[in-house]
């Protein structure tokens, strides 16, 4: 039953989405994410991969740029930013909570802006 509702909603959303702007199945999205090291890289990418619809994720240590390819039909870029912030890393869009930041390993405690 739950599934049926879900399908109905998805179908409905699908139609309405098409009515508005067509959602990109392969959106290339880049955002700045704060972090330091190899360990941060693994955590950031893991968080990104945890978001439904994220197909690739790569965080560059030196430039701090997180580049993903995202299926917008499954998640929004806001969902991505939230998920990364939840892992403790500030993004340009969403700031991590103090508690999530404090949970980071000592080597990952980047300087916050």
């Amino acid at each position: 039953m739950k599934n049926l509702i879900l399908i109905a909603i998805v179908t409905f959303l699908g139609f309405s989405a098409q009515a508005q702007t067509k959602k990109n199945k392969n959106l290339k999205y880049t955002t700045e994410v704060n972090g330091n090291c190899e360990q941060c890289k693994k955590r950031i990418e893991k968080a990104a991969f945890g978001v439904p619809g994220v197909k690739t994720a790569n965080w560059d240590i030196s430039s701090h740029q997180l580049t993903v390819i995202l299926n917008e039909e499954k998640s929004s870029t806001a969902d991505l930013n939230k998920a990364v912030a939840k892992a403790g890393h500030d993004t340009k869009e969403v700031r991590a909570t103090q508690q999530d930041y404090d949970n980071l390993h000592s080597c990952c405690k980047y300087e916050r802006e």
Partner: protein
Amino acid sequence: MQKNILLFMVFLLSVSVFSQEDLEEVKVTKKQKSLKKSYTVTANTTVITSKELLKAACCNLAESFETNPSIDVNFSDALTGTKQIKMLGLTSPYLMITEENIPSVRGASQAYGLSFTPGTWIESVQITKGAGSVINGYESISGQINTELLKPLNDIPFFLNAYGSTDARFELNTHFNKKLSDKWATSLFLHGNTRVAKNDMNDDGFLDNPLGKQINILNRYQYYNPESGLVSFINFRYMNDKKQTGEVDFDKDTDRGTTNQWGSEINTERFDVSTKIGYVFKDMPYQSIGFQNAFNSHKQESYFGLNQYDIKQNSFYSNLIFNSIINNTMHKFTAGLNFTYDQYQEFVNATDYSRIDNSVGAFFEYTYDNTDNFSLILGGRVDNHNRLGFFITPRLHMRYNPWKDGVIRFSAGRGKRSANIFAENQQLFASSRTFSILDNSGKIYGLNPEIAWNYGMSFSQKFKLFSKNAEAGFDIYRTDFQNQAVVDLMESPQEVLFYNLKGNSFANSLQLEFNYELIHNLNLRTAYKYYDIQTDYLRGTFQRPLQAKHRFLGNLEFETQLNDDKQWKFDYTFNWSGKQQLPYTASNPEADRFPEFSPSYAVMNIQVTRVFSSVFEVYAGGENIGNYKQEKAILGADDPFGANFDASIAYAPIFGQMYYAGLRFKIK
């Protein structure tokens, strides 16, 4: 631009999952290390970069493994100077040897094929121990060797290499490169080598290495369009190789086919055309499709004394590959189809073994990578072959990093192949042995297909020792033959027998490795290898002949700091080989016998390179500077048409010490 590079990389990488990380490695390590073992690649793969290749004296792919612990270099016989390679104690027919992921050394080219790729053409070599990927085929049993040639779009406009040595061998390599447009580039590689003088250092009346001439030409085109995601390679290649060996006084014009003098000629002509086309989907750099086609014609005409051996192979190979992801790039897959067609015209003396082989197969390979410390490649293929039948080939590789700078790997897989018994054992024609095939019910020369399982695991750890970089590791592998085309040299010195394995045949190997940066820019590489390779022959169970049970490799490299583009490089390699089981000769008269086991011996090579600028460098070195020689190289050398003649038993260098010098000139 960055995106373009990314797209391009992704395509190249996607051609095979295995070459994927390899190519990346080359990029990363080119300036740092000459031999690189990655800690994040799933399979047990070592990459030999072009820097490492420069350490080898000379000059072709067969000779470029002397400093590599994964591969053992042996001599195939006492006449042709051919070097034979082994991995996990098994000879090259049990390896999958590919050039840019297209099978290259197979069938008719098995004996000399590696010497038909000049060293200067090579960009890098990836060596995978164990089962390997299913993408290129089902034939690999103990390992895979893939060679990447220089890419026209990255090549320099002009390169020249000249080489000469005291065994009268001369080589000339010239490369030309032209960018035809921003999307097209072409390279033309010309290679010639020759040995002009007769050498007989051990005074047995036979040449220690053959007189020879080789012309080798490759013209390749590369297309790359970042906007459309289209990539293509087109290669044309022609090779002509002539060798003459045998008694010093042999004159091919008057003595061929007679018993005046014993002599041999091996003439090979080869023509290759190959194309690759790839497309990376727009906005989906993880998804691509590739289509490879290769045609080659390989013709060898040869005689060994009164034995005549001619083989011509026309081959067509086609491979369609699709790469994509399941949800995200942590789950990748490769799927595709292969088609292989081989037409053989083979004549052993008067017997005609001509035949046509063809196979069609489909493969699927799944790769999981948690982007952290674990990855897995699970592959399978189904093939239908007119002689091997319908069969399934499963392969598995796993990698786990339990802690920092440590890696554990595991692999298992099955391989199946038809043994080209004459082409693979043609050194035996240089003997008075009679060839007998004892079975006649199989489809390949009366024999059944060879089937083997290979299992292995390895561990490597990097650490600091006295604040210098160190690395230690081991690997163990086992190959279990379910069936084998046994080549029996243990029955009689006048016979070689071929038959289906009855009983057991296995190859166990253990390798211990320790590498250390002794002082800045001085690197030590050491490896100890243990092999236990047993086969049940008619006479009983023996170690595989001409295989040392213990081997040791040491390599020291030193280079000075680059100063104004000037540099010195020094390289020293020590190879020790323990005693080897020799073919049975005890029934011969005493003068024409070998002992049961060969003595152990060591071979040392040195090389010095002086880089004068980024344009010009010279190098000089010595091979086998300890001057070790196999005491008796040819049995029955005084009566080469008699019953005891045998030039196929080479366990050590025949020639002794050899010195060489060469130069490299580049226009960038």
